[in-house]
């Protein structure tokens, strides 16, 4: 790819510099903020020790943006924020201004452009999600599509702060879960061992790599039609899909047998309870494009129950810890089944080794 005409000598600069990207009021009060308030959904007010205040307006984006959309966001930033803006960890865009009077103007303009203002405080913020069929080489579904469908139904919850505490969602297109865990996560679940494409395997895969990648030693070398290949011990295989990442011939994806699972109670913050991993509460949901109604429905059930029953500050997992998993399943209408009992490496640590019991 090296081109003869190349004149520019690469500067390995790493991250872009940030100071030039900070609003002057931010720069002035950097490290000297005192407290914040959330005057209304989508708006933050931060007050500095100096007495300065900065207002933030937050809006949702599709994350899969285009230069056209981004230029429109730049227009807003130029008009109201002296040319500065930023994005959040969850793909929301934020406009910071010291001028309170710009807040309502921005909200109006953003909403007119189709960017919903919200995502602050005790609301459902945007969904962190992944590449899907648009770009990844191992996806079983299209995360962006699932997310668009879910957020259509959660539009109100993004724009209002009616939940007990923040709700974080994520969606991932394979079990690897690049989207990460969340209060509620929608993740592909493979339900069958990989089918092996023996023709390709010997040509494109490093056999020992696939063998060592399997966490339960279910893959063994074998000969197929006189060529070295691999076989899977299906009794052992736990459908994790790890081999597929190492070798595309271990075909784990399937239009019918790659399903969705719903997970709840993932919490990464250290607030109150320690961070906690999420738990599976539904599986075998169909992968049903273009709108995946079954997924939206399951997530909706969980959110209504939480909204109804959660107490102030309780994250989804903390709410469940208080009311108990039994009532969680009752109130959401989901069903606990034997496959939801942990059977993996540290399974014993999930046994109820107490007489604490709920009815």
């Amino acid at each position, binding site marked *: 790819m090296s081109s003869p005409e190349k004149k520019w000598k690469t500067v390995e600069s*790493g*991250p872009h510099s940030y100071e030039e990207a900070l609003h002057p009021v931010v720069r002035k009060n950097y490290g000297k*903020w005192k407290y914040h308030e959330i005057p209304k959904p989508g708006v933050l007010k931060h007050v500095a020790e100096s007495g300065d205040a900065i207002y933030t307006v937050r809006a949702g984006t599709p994350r899969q943006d285009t230069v056209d959309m981004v230029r429109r966001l730049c227009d807003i930033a130029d008009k109201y924020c002296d040319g500065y803006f930023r994005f959040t*960890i969850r793909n929301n865009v934020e406009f910071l201004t010291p001028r309170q009077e710009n807040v309502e103007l921005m909200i109006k303009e953003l909403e007119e452009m189709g960017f919903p203002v919200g995502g602050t405080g005790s609301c459902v913020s945007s969904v962190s999600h992944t590449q899907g069929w648009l770009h990844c080489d191992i996806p079983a579904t299209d995360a962006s*599509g699932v997310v668009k469908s879910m957020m259509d139904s959660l539009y109100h919850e993004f724009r209002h702060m009616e939940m007990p505490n923040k709700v974080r969602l994520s969606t991932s297109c394979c079990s690897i879960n690049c989207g990460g865990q969340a209060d509620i996560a929608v993740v592909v679940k493979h339900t069958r061992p990989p089918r092996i494409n023996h023709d390709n395997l010997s040509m494109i895969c490093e056999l020992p790599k696939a063998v060592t990648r399997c966490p339960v030693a279910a893959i063994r070398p074998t000969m197929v039609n006189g060529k070295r290949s691999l076989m899977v011990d299906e009794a052992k295989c736990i459908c994790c899909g790890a081999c597929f990442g190492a070798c595309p011939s271990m075909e784990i994806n399937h239009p019918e047998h790659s399903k969705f699972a719903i997970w709840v109670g993932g919490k990464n913050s250290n607030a*109150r309870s320690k961070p906690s991993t999420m738990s599976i509460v539904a599986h075998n949901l169909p992968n049903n494009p273009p709108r995946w109604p079954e997924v939206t429905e399951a997530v909706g059930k969980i959110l209504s129950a939480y909204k109804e029953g959660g107490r102030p500050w309780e994250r989804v997992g903390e709410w469940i810890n208080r009311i108990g998993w039994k009532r969680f399943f009752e109130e959401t209408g989901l069903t606990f089944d034997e496959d939801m009992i942990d059977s993996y490496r540290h399974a014993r640590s999930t046994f109820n080794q107490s007489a604490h019991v709920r009815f």
Partner: protein
Amino acid sequence: LHPTPMLDELEKGPWPSFISGFKELAERTRKPMLRGVMDQLEYSYNTKMGYWKGGLVTVDGYGAGVITRYSMIKDKFPEATEFHTMRIQPAPGLHYNTTMMRQLCDIWEKYGSGVIALHGQTGDIMLQGIEQDKVQACFDELNQAGWDLGGAGAGMRTAVSCIGQARCENACYNNLEVHLKLLKHFVGALHRPEWNYKIKFKFSGCPNDCTNSIMRSDLAVIGTWKDAIQVEPDEVKAWIAEKGIDALVNQVINLCPTKAIALKEGEMVIDSRDCVRCMHCLNAMPKALSPGKERGISLLMGGKNTLKVGVNMGSMIVPFMKMESEEDLEAFTELTEQIIDWWDDNGLDHERIGETIERVGLKQFLEGVGMDVDINMVTRPRDNPYFKAKY
């Protein structure tokens, strides 16, 4: 554009539609690649399978940063033959000014599809959709504008920071600056990956951990403090006056994880020695309480997601380190280098550092990197007598 009835369903509803965005872009720019990709995506929606395969494309001198995608069904969709992504490192904290952003858009529209993801989960700006023969030129122009490629493969990855001291009263260290300098330091390992597997940094200003660093970074740098929570007694009183004793008990006292707060004649009394810096009371009373004055960072190691081991959260390895001066940062950089070296020597192929530590044992890891043991690393001493000590 060809008909895409499945995708068109995703134009319905109030949430902004990426499909509408693609269509607008495709119609304006008439880029065939966009049409091809939409056609292939429509086909995926129909067949419920993906059709991209990887390959290898880089820019001069780099070994990573471009995610290569070739269509497996290019006979059907020749316009979708190539659809590579360039990962670009943004500024720490995801801050932009419109000049830099417009420039980025212009360069990207010139060479690529015009599709951008803001941002990838690891924190990159993802410029999605470019052909191999335009990659170098695109990169050169971006690089002149101050942008550099992000990570991929078995090396250092792009990092993420929360907004930190730029706006947040909780930030206990200058995470943007530490992010910038550390990633510059490791830039070679990022561009030319040659470890066992990937390593990710994330920088959160406080234990609220707004970057989810504990779950999705091998090296989570989380701000914290050593001394007592700072209390503004008048603001505490005002809070109680406004919300009442029931709220104080049910929403603050009773939610402190270590019962560090007691009720005493209508007042809250924090015993700072029992506090674990969870942030809750500070979150509940932002005007009244703030982190102590002796601030620094904790380093948690081994966070990663699901593959092979299940979700693995990072574990406390360095309970406290100052992070103010150049020397602090140097000491920290050295420590992380040492840790990564140890892992590179002792890890197996495709084994994240958290997996390596679990496999060899925490004690062995500490011995390997020459660190002292600290009780904060564990939730409790062992409950079984099964060890052989050197007596």
